[in-house]
């Protein structure tokens, strides 16, 4: 299988990445992915401190999606950013945004306190003080984490087992998505295993330059998941950024033993269900759902090269109408849009999507990515859901 590789000379300077970069469109201070990534790499070989507005890249990966030469542009930029922070101080704000897992753990001890702590004028002012936008759509913490709730579920034991990797957002912020995944897999005769010892995939660490910590997480996760892969179990994710990290970015960034074997068994939940369908094994006993929805494909799904499986899956439900918004990046890109100086850029990037949603007159948007959903709700005021929620309802009402 052909691997992503790091030769910046594979870049022919065609500028495809520049014209498709949503951040470069929104802000002229950004030199664009070509210069931040492969072209900059050539300069960095000669000068230690060469830096061209690296901080502007949101790691949304539209450059990778548009590159005709398969240069991992965004990953070159992330590596350069990590290198830069080896000799430059990181802000407390960046530490905070990169360590959602620790925040989640603290919050799950005292969720009411945590939300009280985040969503009031005083602490918004404190967050603003460290550089987090007081306008940004920060997520609330759940009163009980997914892993705690999962333990209480009495699953129907089955011969088929699947491992579910929830990731931080589902675990600490929106556990319902994880519960829906478990329910849908059970309807399809799979017993779900959630590896408790697994840690944050590292995506928020990579974008803020905490590469060593991300690598430690990668080694840990790979070791855990590899045991299940050896038993022949598929690894399922419902967050497209976690999925991308586990299957692709680990391989691009770290030389971790077993990483290829694990990558080969990572499935997006909808992709997994569609493969069951192809084998004639999917339970298609869906109740009619009269709803109208817009669907937003997260950039971190588009770059995976598996199409839009949730769109295909949800359209199998009788009577449902789902329109592909196809309106580009929402702008949030993980924690990029939470940063005070990036908030306006993120909103400008998402504007085309927001306008498309508003013009559609449809009040419900489906998207796999948790932070995309936050940003869409923030930019438009519409209701957002993970597609798996709709699938679960279609099963429940039958």
């Amino acid at each position, binding site marked *: 299988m052909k691997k992503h590789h790091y030769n910046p000379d594979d870049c022919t300077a065609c500028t495809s990445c520049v014209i498709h970069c949503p951040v470069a469109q929104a802000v*002229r201070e950004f*030199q*664009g992915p070509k210069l931040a990534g492969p072209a900059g790499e050539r300069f960095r070989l000669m000068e230690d401190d060469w830096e061209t507005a690296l901080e502007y890249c949101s790691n949304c990966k539209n450059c990778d*999606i*548009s590159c*005709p030469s398969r240069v991992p542009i965004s990953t070159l930029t992330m590596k350069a950013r990590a290198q830069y922070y080896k000799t430059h101080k990181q802000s407390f704000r960046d530490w905070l945004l990169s360590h959602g897992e620790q925040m989640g753990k603290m919050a799950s001890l005292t969720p009411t306190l945590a939300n009280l702590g985040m969503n009031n004028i005083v602490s918004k002012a404190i967050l603003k003080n460290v550089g987090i936008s007081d306008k940004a759509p920060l997520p609330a913490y759940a009163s009980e984490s997914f892993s705690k709730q999962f333990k209480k579920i009495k699953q129907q034991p089955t011969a088929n087992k699947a491992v579910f990797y929830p990731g931080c957002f589902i675990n600490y912020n929106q556990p319902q998505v994880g519960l829906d995944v478990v329910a849908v897999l059970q309807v399809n005769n799979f017993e779900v295993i959630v590896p408790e010892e697994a840690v944050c995939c590292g995506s928020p660490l990579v974008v803020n330059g905490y590469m060593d910590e991300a690598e430690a997480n990668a080694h840990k996760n790979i070791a855990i998941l590899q045991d299940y892969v050896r038993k022949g179990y598929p690894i399922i994710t419902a967050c497209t950024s976690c999925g991308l990290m586990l*299957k692709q970015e680990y391989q691009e960034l770290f030389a971790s033993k077993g990483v290829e074997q694990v990558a080969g068994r990572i499935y997006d939940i909808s992709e997994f269900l569609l493969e069951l369908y192809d084998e004639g094994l999917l339970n298609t006993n869906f109740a009619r759902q009269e709803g109208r929805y817009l669907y937003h494909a997260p950039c971190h799904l588009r770059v995976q090269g598996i199409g839009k499986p949730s769109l295909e899956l949800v359209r199998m439900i009788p009577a449902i109408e789902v329109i592909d918004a196809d309106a580009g990046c929402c702008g949030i890109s993980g924690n990029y849009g939470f940063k005070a100086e990036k908030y306006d850029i993120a909103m400008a990037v998402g504007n085309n999507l927001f306008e498309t949603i508003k013009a559609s007159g449809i009040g419900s948007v489906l998207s796999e990515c948790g932070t995309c959903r936050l940003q869409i709700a923030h930019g438009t005021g519409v209701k957002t859901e993970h597609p798996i929620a709709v699938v679960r309802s279609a099963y429940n009402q039958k």
Partner: protein
Amino acid sequence: MRISDVIVIGGGLAGLTAAITAAGRGKGVTLMTSGAGTLAIGGGTIDLLGYLENNTLVTTPRAGLRQLPPEHPYSKVGSQVVEEAVQFFLTMCQEEGFRYTGGLDHVQWLPTAIGSVKPSCLVPLTMDSTPIQAASHVVVVGFTRLKDYFPELISKGLGNIPGFQKEYEEVMIDPGFTGGRDVTTLDIARWLDTIQGQQACREQLAKQVKPGSAVIIPPVLGSRPSYVVRDALERMLACKFVEVVIMPTAVVGLRLRAMLLQRAKRLGVTIMEQAHVAYTVQEGKQVTAVVTGNIDRERSYPAKAVILATGGFFGGGIIAEHDSISEPIFNLPVTAPTEREEWGTRQLFANAAQPFAKIGIQVDDGLRPVNADGQVLLENVYIAGRNLAGYDHCLEKSGNGVALVSGYKAGLNC
């Protein structure tokens, strides 16, 4: 089991045209792309045929078609199909609200950023050069900090060309961009998408542009496939705008691609981005599935027919190594001169054909790949665009023309 009637590999002009044509016939189409392709950065005009092999100019594209050798893709598909493809394209553009003009009966002469003219066939309304030929006073507009674009070069060059000998005047517009990044035509086009940009442009042009003037401008009249920006500026200034041919990145290709994607989506084409096709599964002379090889694992997609539109050397559809030449997905035979010395002529600027330009895959009249004896190798595979052997798009000015015509034909046959 999900199965596509046809999988199109490649999202350039040939692949998109094939997908749209097939979907228009009611086929279930999956289009697989790897990167956004050269269409987005290219010129966006459909150059059908400007010159013949001996470097003589065609009197009209239609007349030129009759003088092509039998191995040329246009000769293979026949003039009737060329005619239909042109009509198909013009109708599609009209229906999508982004009309193109031109046809097989005359050469469209397009002014370029170096002050020359080049022959084309189907062009967006913003590139129709008749307003220049009709006007007496021509204003050539430049933009401060825009690279590789010099208004004086244009007026000086065009002033020597029959039909374009006019009274020229140059004017520079300052879009007032901040930030250190190079200014591109796309930056300016996005600025002119906004009402403020249009107003500022009007104010800076109002002095020189008299009612009835023709205004030559780089391709900046909006980033989207519509004439809203051109119409607004022409109304404000009572003049006619003509966009010139420039180096990539030319916004015109970006607009054309957006229009084609919009059309494909409307017709229900499933587009899979970053689906890097590695090989196909075959049973005898039939392909039964296309296999992608992404970084995580291989995935197999069943199909009843496949259209290959992965491009030439630049697009990665044909790969030349030091001692080999290949088509990487089907491993189809690629016709090339045996000796490497015969691939090129040494006089680079001699305006002569370069033999390597004609390297590609041999096909039958139905665009199916054939071996050296002319026998069909794969019965449900069709080749479109720069993968094809037997034409020199650079010399002939026929690149997008062959992509359109062969994409249309492949979409009809699959």
